[in-house]
């Protein structure tokens, strides 16, 4: 089994050069790749290595061996596991990269009496901040895995053998827990209880956010839910923003930067994440119509805006009209939504968050790390 994983790590190594990490699938890959590879050079750290220590542990090699049994089944863990190695959709390790850039942009700590010394820094980043970046990734990955747990009662025979799903769940629970446990011990080693509390609260936020996003029953509750954009933003902050915002803040705390700097870093993480989420929600609406079949969540930002604009009554009517034999014709629904202001409102909101993110880092001294953060923030507002 070590063989498998050393092979996998080779793939990671090989893929590093031409890795197609895309935060936003719409942005031209070359454009985005340049942003990432430049950023990686700045932090002096190949971000793909970040969770490698964990991936190469005995426990996860064990899982890897077992996951092979899942090949051919529909368990979501399979895709998540593939994502560990090469990922083009899940923005693998982007959070870690942002935390490192933020650490570098903020520079050495201000307090002379503190126990952090500039000479400990490597490429302008404290070792503790590098560990934090890794922890952030571990937590993010743990929840990618835990999101993929299958509810066994909703599983039907036509979906394949129940036994496979049970087994897949077992592996998913264990490997997610393993990543979280490593995050916990990693946090403890940072020797800063404020950071432990902050990141633990981010885990709690993440759980709440993911919980909100789960459909309550097979018939999607969202169809009747009177959700508005204010709640949408609150919930998406929990599920997509809290971890990055709090990690950025924690990176400042580790370097003993003052409350103001911590607040700014938090803001950057928050607005960047929300901008990113809005951008990816927009994708089905801005892509070329001819590019194959579309689907989108009825809880994605443009739809929620649209529902708010047209009102619950008309929305239900429109939804009914887009249905043929019980299934939604998304292409038709999209055309209906595009007639109103939902899409442009989402774009405006996305630009707002991108600009807020840009604004929040202007107080940091001008540096290549700051420019990289600015590049990332402005990429968010391109559709």
């Amino acid at each position, binding site marked *: 089994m070590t063989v498998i994983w050393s092979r996998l790590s080779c793939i990671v190594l090989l893929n590093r050069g031409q890795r197609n990490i895309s935060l936003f699938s719409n942005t031209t890959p070359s454009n985005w790749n340049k942003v990432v590879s430049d950023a990686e050079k700045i932090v002096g750290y190949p971000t793909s290595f970040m969770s490698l220590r964990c991936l190469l542990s*005995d*426990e996860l090699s*064990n899982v890897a061996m*077992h996951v092979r049994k899942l090949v051919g089944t529909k368990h979501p863990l399979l895709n998540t596991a593939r994502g560990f190695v090469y990922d083009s959709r899940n923005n693998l390790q982007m959070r870690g990269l942002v935390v490192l850039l933020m650490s570098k942009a903020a520079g050495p700590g201000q307090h002379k009496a503190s126990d952090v010394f500039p000479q400990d820094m490597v490429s302008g980043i404290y070792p503790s901040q590098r560990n934090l970046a890794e922890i952030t990734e571990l937590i993010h990955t743990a*929840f990618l895995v*835990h*999101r993929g*747990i*299958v*509810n*066994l*009662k*909703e599983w039907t025979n036509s979906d394949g053998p129940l036994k496979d799903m*049970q087994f897949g*769940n*077992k592996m998913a*629970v*264990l490997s*997610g*827990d*393993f990543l*979280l*446990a*490593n995050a*916990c*011990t990693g*946090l*403890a*080693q940072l*020797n*800063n*209880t*404020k950071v*432990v*509390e902050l990141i*633990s*609260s981010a*885990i*709690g936020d993440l*759980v*709440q956010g*993911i*919980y*909100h996003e*789960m459909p309550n029953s097979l018939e999607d509750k969202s169809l009747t839910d009177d959700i508005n954009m204010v709640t949408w933003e609150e919930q998406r902050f929990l599920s997509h923003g809290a971890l990055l915002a709090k990690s950025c803040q924690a990176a400042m705390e580790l370097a003993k930067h003052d409350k103001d700097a911590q607040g700014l870093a938090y803001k950057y993480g928050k607005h960047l994440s929300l901008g990113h989420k809005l951008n990816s929600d927009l994708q089905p609406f801005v892509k070329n119509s001819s590019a194959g079949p579309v689907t989108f969540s009825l809880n994605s930002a443009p739809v929620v805006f649209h529902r708010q604009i047209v009102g619950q009554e008309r929305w239900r009517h429109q939804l009914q009209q887009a249905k043929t034999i019980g299934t939604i014709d998304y292409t038709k629904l999209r055309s209906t939504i595009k007639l109103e202001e939902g899409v442009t409102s989402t774009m405006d909101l996305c630009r707002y968050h991108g600009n807020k993110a840009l604004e929040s880092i202007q107080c940091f001294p001008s540096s290549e790390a700051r420019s990289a953060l600015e590049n990332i923030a402005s990429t968010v507002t391109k559709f």
Partner: protein
Amino acid sequence: MATPWRHCWRWTIGSTSTGVLETICGFNGRSATFAASSFRGTGAVAGSGKEGLSSRPVNTTSIGNYILTSRHKSRLLYPTPKPCCCKRIHSDAKLKDPFSLAQKDLNHLYDDIKKELFVSKSELKSLCDYYFDGKGKAFRPMIVVLMARACNIHSNRDGDLLPGQRSIAMISEMIHTASLVHDDVIDGSDKRRGKTTINEVWGERKAILAGDFILSAASMALARIGNNTVVSVLSQVIEDLVRGEFMQLGSKENESERFKHYLEKTFKKTASLIANSCKAVSILVNSDPEVQEIAFQYGRNVGIAFQLVDDVLDFTACASQLGKPSATDLKLGLATGPVLFACQQFPELHAMIMRRFSTTGDVDRAWQYVLESDGVDQTNYLARSYCREAIRQISLLRPSPEQDALIRLTEMVLTRDKKSATIELVGGELTLTGVPKNRLCQATWMQC
């Protein structure tokens, strides 16, 4: 509202409560001394003396072999009661049982936990609160509270808990519950503490999230204590819990390795939480590493004994009115202490262990082998020696009522019974092959 977490613990050790080891001492001094020295010699049971945390001793096969070859079964099997070492405790009528000593500190335990689990979303809140209904045993918080008080008195203070120690009692129960919630998903269980499990009611996805949420709340409470060493010690528990669960996935071909593997898994899955929580409360009041080690070793030994007894109960306690024991572990493919001991007498079990009792009829056959063997007795015997070491450790502290309570608690660990078995007992119908009736009647550790 003070949740009546404790309702009513009936502590009914009768005259039959004398320990096996003590009894051997009385009846059979020479071989028992030999037995005891063989434990020491191999470092088998105790984390005796100055052993580091890392050297968790595990060479138990030698015990097994010794028990198998040199002892006479009849002497070990619950002989006529004869009070000896426990006399000091039981004769003192003024001493209260461990629960009442700890109760004052645990009155608000579940309310405090629910406050930590603050969420706006009502459904997630009800999932998280589900097991904190006041009906749990709060076994871990009780040990933690008693240990904290014992350490405080040892450190020339009054017994009263420090705020951080109170938090640790709460956190220990939270970590335990979070791991139960995940375990139930992993094992596909539908019942826990007489309730339908979270995964059965709300589905696996939500159950896992609820477990994660409880863990994050525990971790926040831990951080707020503000002590980095305490954070490290309890984070280790979380890692141990997961590693222990991973260890359960594999089985070892070699028999001695298998026993080592089993005890290491037992430490990680059960004892680590108790040992490290005990250590954490000692750290908050006493900087002496020796005191911290005593707290850790007490928790470690009690924890392993607790799990060994639990593994025995899986064979002897009754899950249903029919009086048929549950054998849950066998059904999950797990070979616990009684099976591993039985395998030394019946090598036929080896193949079944290796295939994790997966062939039809394996569970029933393994079950029969275990009952025909000395597996149950030997596991109990092993548990007893862990308890003895726990007593030896805690006795190194300055005497206090809490220290006494911790000593008596080891006896409760050995004689406890699952609630379901107790119900059977109340009906007075309990007859189990391989388990003498008085063994089950010795003590009833139950809730009303």
